[in-house]
């Protein structure tokens, strides 16, 4: 049931959560309540991309063409923007998605184990035209790719 030892990096600074995590990972607990303790408040509450990246342990990330980031060039509606990320980097263990111009850029963070492919699709709110950034962790190193999404008129009546 071990998910992935590098996960602890994510939980650095959250000691109790780390313990809980270990218990979940070893199968002692398997409740959603236990998972909740592992929400990375520092990273999600960060108001800028750099802070959010630090929060997930990514002080530096190299640009990579091996990450496929699919998002519309022009979004039909900023309230629901489909974003797909696929990592072709071997040993990818996590994918984080950030919307740079949102009040809180870190939008979602996923960890993969037991056969899950590093391939996720989500739908995100965009407060305005912004870069969307995917950050991948593989073999303990971070890689990134980004794309601009333009947000179009409408959605607010008027």
């Amino acid at each position, binding site marked *: 049931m071990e998910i992935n030892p590098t996960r602890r990096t994510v939980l650095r600074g959250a000691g109790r959560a780390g313990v809980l995590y270990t218990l979940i990972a070893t199968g002692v607990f398997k409740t959603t309540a236990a998972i909740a303790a592992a929400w990375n408040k520092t990273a999600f509450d960060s108001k800028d991309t750099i802070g959010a990246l630090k929060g997930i342990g990514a002080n530096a990330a190299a640009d990579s063409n091996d990450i496929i980031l699919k998002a519309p060039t022009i979004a039909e509606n900023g309230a629901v923007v489909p974003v797909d990320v696929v990592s072709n980097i071997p040993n990818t263990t996590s994918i984080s998605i950030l919307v740079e111009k949102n009040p809180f850029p*870190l939008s979602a*963070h996923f960890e993969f184990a037991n056969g*899950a492919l590093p391939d996720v699709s989500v739908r995100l709110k965009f407060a305005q035209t912004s870069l969307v950034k995917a950050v991948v962790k593989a073999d303990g190193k971070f890689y990134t790719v980004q794309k601009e999404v333009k947000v179009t008129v409408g959605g607010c009546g008027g």
Partner: protein
Amino acid sequence: MTDPMKIRAQMKGDVAEVRVLMSHPMETGQRKDAAGNAVPVHFIQNISIEVGGKVVVEGQTGTSVSRNPVFGFKVKGAKVGDKVAVNWIDNKGDKRTDEASIT
């Protein structure tokens, strides 16, 4: 009270494609209701996907995730009939688990 999720899990070749629709307001805390009162922040913070009893994906989410979230994942090594369980828990401690079988 929480509403059920809609889970679709299908084998495409040797990969199981899992799509999950969740019923959740994902309130940012910045929206005002019709009366002008701020609607309190209320959003899913953690999700996990289990296939055949093993956790395959664990996710953390923030307020940027759209209302009534939609997630898609792919899992190798699963087979038709395997149970898929999806869990979420939000910032108020509300939680929900739903299951489906891979078809």
